[in-house]
């Protein structure tokens, strides 16, 4: 058994899995085929549905991989085969010759500048050129050059050799050969991702025309780091397009070319790209041609609605059969307008093909070489109750390699795979790792020397705020010794630049003006530590969320405000002092709330990782919603899954189950929580270091809708589900989708209702092929590989009718307006089934106990919609299953394992570091009144008897002392102290006062500094 794991694939899935494993005590090898990690996410401009800048949220993770002491990154390396068994695998890896010595290359870029050979740049999806020796993108990790052997003049023709000549550290080595190495690991995680569909396979769409491009190419056009710096122009003539069309499902939902699956993400990325394009150019006219709009995820429907209502994006429910190119090379699309029934032809300046997700070549190759089973779609096969387990025990899978999925589902699966690998190897935890080391802190000079780094954030800041102007202004501020601009302050090369600047200019305070400290402070604090500065000598000036993004149309005022924000940060930072954290022991036990599939899975995974768990369930039995399910999507019996899980939970001696129980009290914090559970009338105390919230959701009761409650033949899908387990006798069943969802009262999509309906329609048809089943729908959202169920249903004769006006339910029939036929249809129905969404449970209690937020629909709000889908902003509390938003069983299981993995990154620690910015008492000023003791919720201050000596008199007095291990740094005591004896460090009255003072000094009224400022831009 080895305490190490190989993660194959360095996209966001592999990155998340590697970080989780390395943070919970395992040596991790991250193997990436391309020269840099980052995967397809690194090519994205924004992410839906928040339009967060993709690189901004990804880059800190890339940097973290690069600097993690327990991750060994093997980039530009292919995995050839995996052999062995769970606990002891041998992974054969070929390190491809990059012709540059990674250890010597500094990433300076001299070689790239001088290289004469130009090649199409794959990072920009072939729309620009790069050199034969190249670093793929600015934030690349590792930041070393690679020679493209197929195009290098020296390697192909023996001429040139200029890169070798200009390379200072002599890193270029033309003699380098591929090298095969073998890794001994305990487990393997496959995160081999997907391959974007090649649209040239569908000749009718005319991908050969320069203005017919893929959605990934369009994404690059929108990006500030793209071929046109974020200006959308036509490839043919460089003109700005006025009319753009998206064609959806190119390479998806198309059995003729053996792409039966839905790619899950294209509807939303097309919506996102349209919104961003409209933000760039409000005059743009954008049309999205689609089959169904599949806005099924959390906040997706709201995003789709905004696209239509706020941005005027036109959605047309029709799939144009071809792209028409006329004699003058202009583009048009012909489509059937279902509102009027007419065939229409419209001209467009650009046509964007929303390409689907194909299984990657490396997935297929590795499956073949190592005997890993694939499913019918070419994805790595898994069971719906074991969504990350492959056919080989000890080999796990996550992300798009398992099936098309978006980033949050990918990240959740990645953490889930990490949980499984860690559980398998839990006995070896900590055997192969080393501690992170930072250099000793440099002694602090009495005079502040502040460095200011102003970030363009691509165009997120730079397109609104005049960044060079802010830099020039920063140079004039007191104590500023250095200022410069940066394209992306969070990229790895920027970290090197910041460290160098600290070193060369002897900086002892650092201000980065970029985005929010809530996401990026730790990254820059670590950079400071690596440069020998205490992390508390750092300050972020938020000029993105609080400035460029909210003053998009007032560029001058935004620039003035950005200067003001920087000025305040500089003034405050000049007063910063080094602060230190304390190490305190933690409780290596977890509490899981909710005994459904998600809660049980989370409890089992944590227990399998070696930690004790208390699992509480409000009902008499475990099982949650699955108890009421009578068949799973793959035909399995739910009881088979449930019985195994329940049995394993009860038999596991690390899990304590409390039924009919609820949590009534919680106090404490990350690593050291104390709670009271009320179970069957008895109060049970519980101590835990981390908690997982898996409290699920409940079915919406459509009282008053479609005669529900009045007519006994009108039932819900959940009721049908139960009836199908007992056998029903209806001959004519009509299902109505989106009942109580996607409307004014409840804007979100229920995600699972379409799949539930189709599953049950198939069951009815299979049991009695003569019975008729109608499904009245708005959009069929059978995403991903679930598309197969939809196909099965149609083959079996289930009739699907799209409605735009609510159907009318009468006794014995349903009348629906068929928008395709443009007429009312009466369907004889002896059973009307209403598909209703899941709605939030009684989450307010837990929301109050843990102080974790709820979203506007009453579900729990995760820390970040993309990259922290199972975390809360509050440390030590995690989230999974339908408590976050409605989801399928397999997704809930993935999330549960993910939450377990995240919890284990805490439970596996030997100690918890307390807050560094704690409050301190100045004993000389303290009058011992005890106000601080009364105010503090953590009992951190206490009154101590001390001997005070004043001149020649000594007496005993009471003075307050604050226990730094108990203090959480809220600063309430400092605000309450009547004599100002308490300082809330890092947020002292002096620091706050300086910031206020700086605000009120008008920009430009600051007295210019005397002497020279060493500032390089």
């Amino acid at each position, binding site marked *: 058994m080895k305490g190490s794991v190989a993660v194959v694939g360095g996209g966001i899935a592999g990155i998340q899995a590697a970080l989780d494993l390395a943070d919970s005590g395992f040596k991790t090898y991250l193997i990436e085929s391309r020269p840099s990690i980052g995967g397809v996410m690194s090519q994205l401009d924004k992410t839906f549905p928040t339009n967060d800048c993709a690189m901004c949220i990804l880059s800190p993770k890339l940097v973290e991989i690069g600097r993690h002491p327990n991750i060994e990154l093997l980039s530009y390396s292919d995995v050839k085969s995996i052999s062995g068994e769970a606990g002891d695998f041998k992974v054969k890896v070929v390190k491809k010759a990059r012709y540059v010595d990674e250890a010597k290359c500094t990433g300076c870029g001299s070689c790239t500048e001088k290289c004469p050979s130009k090649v199409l740049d794959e990072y920009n999806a072939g729309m620009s050129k790069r050199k034969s020796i190249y670093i793929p993108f600015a934030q690349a990790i590792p930041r070393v050059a690679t020679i493209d052997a197929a195009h290098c003049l020296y390697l192909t023709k023996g001429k040139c050799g200029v890169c070798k000549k200009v390379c200072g550290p002599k890193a270029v080595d033309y003699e380098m050969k591929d090298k095969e190495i073998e890794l001994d690991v305990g487990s393997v995680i496959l995160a081999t991702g997907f391959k974007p569909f090649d649209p040239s396979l569908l000749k009718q769409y005319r991908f050969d025309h320069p203005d017919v491009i893929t959605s990934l190419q369009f994404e690059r056009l929108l990006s500030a780091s793209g071929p046109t710096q974020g200006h959308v122009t036509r490839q043919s003539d460089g003109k700005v397009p006025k009319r753009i069309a998206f064609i959806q499902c190119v390479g998806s939902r198309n059995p003729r070319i053996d792409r039966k699956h839905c790619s899950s993400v294209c509807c939303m990325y097309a919506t996102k790209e349209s919104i961003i394009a409209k933000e760039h150019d409000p005059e743009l006219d954008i049309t999205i041609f689609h089959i169904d709009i599949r806005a099924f995820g959390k906040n997706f429907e709201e995003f789709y609605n905004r696209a239509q209502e706020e941005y005027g994006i036109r959605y047309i429910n029709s799939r144009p059969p071809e792209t028409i190119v006329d004699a003058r090379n202009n583009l048009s699309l012909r489509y059937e307008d279902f509102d009027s029934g007419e065939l229409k032809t419209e001209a467009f300046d650009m046509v964007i093909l929303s390409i689907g997700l194909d299984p990657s070549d490396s997935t297929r190759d590795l499956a073949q070489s190592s005997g890993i089973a694939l499913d019918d779609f070419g994805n790595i096969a898994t069971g719906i109750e074991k969504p990350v387990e492959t056919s080989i025990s000890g080999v796990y899978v996550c992300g798009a390699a398992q099936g098309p999925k978006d980033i949050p589902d990918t990240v959740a699966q990645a953490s889930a795979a990490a949980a499984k690998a860690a559980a398998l190897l839990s006995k070896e935890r900590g055997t192969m790792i080393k501690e992170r080391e930072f250099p000793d802190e440099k002694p602090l000079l009495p005079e502040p020397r502040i460095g200011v780094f102003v970030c363009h954030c691509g165009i997120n800041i730079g397109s609104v705020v005049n960044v060079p102007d802010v830099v020039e202004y920063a140079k004039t501020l007191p104590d500023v010794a250095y200022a410069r601009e940066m394209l992306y302050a969070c990229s790895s090369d920027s970290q090197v630049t910041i460290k160098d600047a600290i070193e060369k200019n002897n900086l002892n305070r650092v201000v980065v003006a970029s985005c929010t400290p809530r996401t990026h402070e730790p990254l820059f604090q670590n950079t400071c530590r690596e440069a020998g500065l205490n992390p508390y000598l750092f300050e972020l000036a938020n000029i993105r969320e609080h400035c460029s993004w909210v003053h998009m149309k*007032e560029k001058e005022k935004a620039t003035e405000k950005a200067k003001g924000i920087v000025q305040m940060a500089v003034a405050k930072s000049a007063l910063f002092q080094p602060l230190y954290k304390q190490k305190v022991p933690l409780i290596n036990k977890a509490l899981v709330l909710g005994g459904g599939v998600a809660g049980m899975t989370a409890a089992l995974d944590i227990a399998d990782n070696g930690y004790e768990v208390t699992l509480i369930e409000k009902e008499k039995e475990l099982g949650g919603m699955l108890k009421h399910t009578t068949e799973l999507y793959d035909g399995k019996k739910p009881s088979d899954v449930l019985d195994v899980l329940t049995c394993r939970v009860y038999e596991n001696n690390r899990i304590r189950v409390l039924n009919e129980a609820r949590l009534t009290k919680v106090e404490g914090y990350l690593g050291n929580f104390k709670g009271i559970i009320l179970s069957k009338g008895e109060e049970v105390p519980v101590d835990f270091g981390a908690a997982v919230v898996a409290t699920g959701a409940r079915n919406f009761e459509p009282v008053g809708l479609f005669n529900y409650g009045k007519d006994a033949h009108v039932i819900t899908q959940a009721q049908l589900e139960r009836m199908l387990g007992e056998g029903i006798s209806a001959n004519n069943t009509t299902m109505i989708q989106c009942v109580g969802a996607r409307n004014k009262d409840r804007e979100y999509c229920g995600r699972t209702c379409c799949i539930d309906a189709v599953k049950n329609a198939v069951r009815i048809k299979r049991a009695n092929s003569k019975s008729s089943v109608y499904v009245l729908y708005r959009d069929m959202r059978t995403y991903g590989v679930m598309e197969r169920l939809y196909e099965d249903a149609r083959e079996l004769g289930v009739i699907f009718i799209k409605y735009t006006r609510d159907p009318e339910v009468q006794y014995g029939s349903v009348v629906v307006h068929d928008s395709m036929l443009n007429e009312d249809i009466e369907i004889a129905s002896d059973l009307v089934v209403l598909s209703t969404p899941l709605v939030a449970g009684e989450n307010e209690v837990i929301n109050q106990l843990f102080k974790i937020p709820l979203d506007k629909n009453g579900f729990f709000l995760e820390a970040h919609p993309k990259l922290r889908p199972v975390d809360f902003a509050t440390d030590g509390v995690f989230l999974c299953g339908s408590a976050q938003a409605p989801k399928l069983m397999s997704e809930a299981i993935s999330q549960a394992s993910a939450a377990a993995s995240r919890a284990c990154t805490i439970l596996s620690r030997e100690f918890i570091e307390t807050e560094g910015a704690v409050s301190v008492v100045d004993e000389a000023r303290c009058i011992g009144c005890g106000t601080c003791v009364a105010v503090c919720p953590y009992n951190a201050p206490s009154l101590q008897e001390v001997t005070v000596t004043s001149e020649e008199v000594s007496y005993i007095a009471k003075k307050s002392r604050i226990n730094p291990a108990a203090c959480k740094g809220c600063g309430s005591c400092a605000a309450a102290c009547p004599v100002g004896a308490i300082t809330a460090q890092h947020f002292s009255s002096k620091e706050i006062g300086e910031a206020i003072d700086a605000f009120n000094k008008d920009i430009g009224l600051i007295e210019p500094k005397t002497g020279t400022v060493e500032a390089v831009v």
Partner: protein
Amino acid sequence: MSAEAWEPKIVAFCCNWCSYGGADSAGMGRFQQPPSTRIIRVMCSGRIDPLHVFNAFLEGADAVLVTGCHIGDCHYVNGNDKTKIKYKFLESVVRELGIEKERLQLNWISASEGEKFASFIRDVTEQIKKLGPSPLKPEGVS
């Protein structure tokens, strides 16, 4: 300077866990707002000392906003309950000084309430524009 072009100076105290996050969410949602406000981040609204508020007025702020988590949501158990008590005291002193009530406002904004944050800033800016500069503003500060 015309009243229309005059941009008031508003100091907003935001707690790290809720209202600062609300301001971030406003950015993420691109909810536009006037550039009148500067945010002072504190870990908890309970940290806000009445002296900080007076200091802001004396330095020339036209309005001061005290914001935090919704009652019951405080990351530090009950910091915002203490804020509420201190705010009552602040209000009474501000009245004594003869400052209009619009110039000191309290609001609870969660991390997900980006739109609420933006509309709060819009509303306050509008109110202060009507009132004009603060009477406490020192000479030479615009």
